[in-house]
């Protein structure tokens, strides 16, 4: 069990009366890889900047090791940041960029009681050299120390930015979409690299991204955000398998999301048909959102299926086909390795563990239908505005 390092308590942030962060509660453990995931404008970067000290929340508290740090300026925090566009110093070479933080005299450790005389200590040149070279080796940039920043590729600049932050031995490394500017191949490499560095250094990484694959691949914990609120916190598996609402289900992976009614424990009705499922604890006859992942659906001959539908489009994706099937006007996405031509009528079978039940939320009906821009979609959109009933305990964190 690792200990808690950072905690945000009821943090809100407003720019010109526009609420960017709405009452965020979050704690971050020592040595974990935590990802803030969400679409642009969801407040994830603002959250990161609050932890880094670049913005002060308009309300709420930021705690670091149990100490309130709202008013501590960035240069006094034990946190370093890898910026979105790297923000490397163009007038310094690779070595000097990495050494930048080390060359700044620091108040002596131990004399941490405020108000006391702080003696500034300079790190001796030999130690600076050692630490920089060591860090360049960690990020596989040995031999590049005299290069100019402009002579580096995007991936190399990325590594310099990481080395520059890590060489200060921060307790927490903040990464703001650090792989956004790299091409796909390099991104995959850097994902592994980052994960390796995090494990090697054993420090906390707080990673901001809008790329759900990236988040799933690297994180210990994912925080899904939208509209300034935390939608769900959990391990990648939990977030994928047990999304809390339609937004999370749609944002993480592909999902078919249907309206259903929970008849009793383990029995849900949709398309006028009862299905067995594994969920319980809902009020009898409660309206719910039903999530079915496209890869969980089994296609069978028409006669054997629990539901029947017509294939309306097929797209080859390499490993599988994205097959869109029309079930009474509602279009599903099914991912299957078998080819079913357009126009074919097929049946499907849903096993109980393929069906995930979610409470209704403000997002119900906004996602999960694959007949993009069809009339039904718009109608459903209107309906959802009427039932914004429960934005259930979204600030609570899954215990694991």
């Amino acid at each position, binding site marked *: 069990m690792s200990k808690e390092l950072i905690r945000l308590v009821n943090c809100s942030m407003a720019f010109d009366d526009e609420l960017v962060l709405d009452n965020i509660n979050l704690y971050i453990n020592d040595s974990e890889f935590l990802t803030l995931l969400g679409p642009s404008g969801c407040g994830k970067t603002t959250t990161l900047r609050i932890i880094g000290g670049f913005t002060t929340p308009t309300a709420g508290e930021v705690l670091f090791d149990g100490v309130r740090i709202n008013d501590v300026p*960035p240069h006094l925090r034990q946190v370093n940041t890898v*910026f979105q566009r790297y923000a490397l*110093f163009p007038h310094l070479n690779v070595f000097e960029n990495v050494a930048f933080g080390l060359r700044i005299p620091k108040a002596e450790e131990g004399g941490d009681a405020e108000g006391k005389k702080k003696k500034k200590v300079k790190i001796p040149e030999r130690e600076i050299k050692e630490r920089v070279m060591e860090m360049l080796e960690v990020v596989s940039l040995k031999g590049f120390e005299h290069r100019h920043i402009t002579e580096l590729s995007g991936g190399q600049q990325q590594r310099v930015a990481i080395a520059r932050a890590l060489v200060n031995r921060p307790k927490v490394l903040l990464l703001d979409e650090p792989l956004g500017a790299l091409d796909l191949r390099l991104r995959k490499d850097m994902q592994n690299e980052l994960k390796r560095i995090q494990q090697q250094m054993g420090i906390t990484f707080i990673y901001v991204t809008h790329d759900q694959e990236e988040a799933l691949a690297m994180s210990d914990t994912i925080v899904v955000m939208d509209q300034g609120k935390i939608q769900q916190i959990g391990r990648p598996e939990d977030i994928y398998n047990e999304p809390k609402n339609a937004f999370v289900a749609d944002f993480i992976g592909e999902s078919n999301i249907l309206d259903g009614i929970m008849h009793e424990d383990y029995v849900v009705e949709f398309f006028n048909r009862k299905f067995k499922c594994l969920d319980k604890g809902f009020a009898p006859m409660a309206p719910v959102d039903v999530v079915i992942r496209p890869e969980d659906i089994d296609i069978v001959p028409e006669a054997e299926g629990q539901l029947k539908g017509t294939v309306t489009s097929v797209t080859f994706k390499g490993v599988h086909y994205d097959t869109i099937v029309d079930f009474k006007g509602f279009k599903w996405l099914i991912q299957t390795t078998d080819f079913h031509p357009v126009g074919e009528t097929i049946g499907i079978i849903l096993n109980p563990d393929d069906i995930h039940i979610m409470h209704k939320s403000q997002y119900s009906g906004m996602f999960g239908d694959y007949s993009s821009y069809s009339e039904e979609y718009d109608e459903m959109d209107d309906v959802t505005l009427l039932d914004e009933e429960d934005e259930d305990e979204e600030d609570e964190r899954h215990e694991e």
Partner: protein
Amino acid sequence: MKNKRAFFVIPYVGWMTLFVVAPIIIVAVYAFTTAGGEFTLDNFSRMGTYASVFLRSFELAIIATLICLLIGYPLAYVMAKEGPRFQRIAMVLIMLPMWMNFLLRTYAWMSLLENNGLINQAFSALGIVDLSNAINGGLNSFCAWLNSGLLEWVNGLLGSDFVLNTARPTDQTFIRMLFTQGAVVLGMVYNYLPFMVLPIYSVLVKMDNSLVEAARDLGANTSCVFRRVIFPLSLPGVLSGVTMVFVPAVSTFAISKMLGGGTQLMLGDLIEMLFMGSAYNPNLGAAISIVMMLIVVICMWVMNRFGEGEEQAVIL
């Protein structure tokens, strides 16, 4: 394609050849000939006579450039940090004097600095003239005391004869400002300040704020961020500002003539005199011009070496 593009450059190249390159060649030819047109190095060998003028020109230009930098950099820095409203207003205020005729501006300074001009009237009304007299008197007696005490002993010891000035005026009815070096420097600063502010401002305003944040993130406090990131990155702007102030300042003649009143002869005045005025000798004037050009080019070259980095703002 390439030929077509070259076509558009022809007017400019023609202009440059006719009005820049050719005149320089003519000046060079003049510099190496006598009035009769024979080759000579005489014009250059006589240069030593004017060393004091060279020295004064460069000294005053350097002082004016430094003052411009000291005033201009903070202003540019504040402008770049403030909102667009402040920027617009500051920009207008900086440019405003430049919309007025140069001679008019300088005449205005003349009448301001005059012995019974506005500033002196204000000074005597505020008692500053009396204060200055009192200070001079105090300084005189202090220097006299030093002369008869400490300095006498030092002089006896070293066999030298240091004497401090004890004749500062104590009966002034005004403070002499016009026709002093200070007035010339003031005129230069006043006229050339915008050329310092604008290039520095344009570099600072374009600077990526995330660099500042990165420096703070790495442990730099405000002054450290400035010393290690903002100032080094603004050097190209500083260099072009310095160039744009220094070069015209070193060769100015109107300012030194009007505000220096002929007591502060500068290179510009000298050259003017040699070409147009009393001491007519265009060959010597051409030689002085060439030497001045060379010194300026060397100064700029050295400065640009200091600015290292590939993005040099001004390469002559």
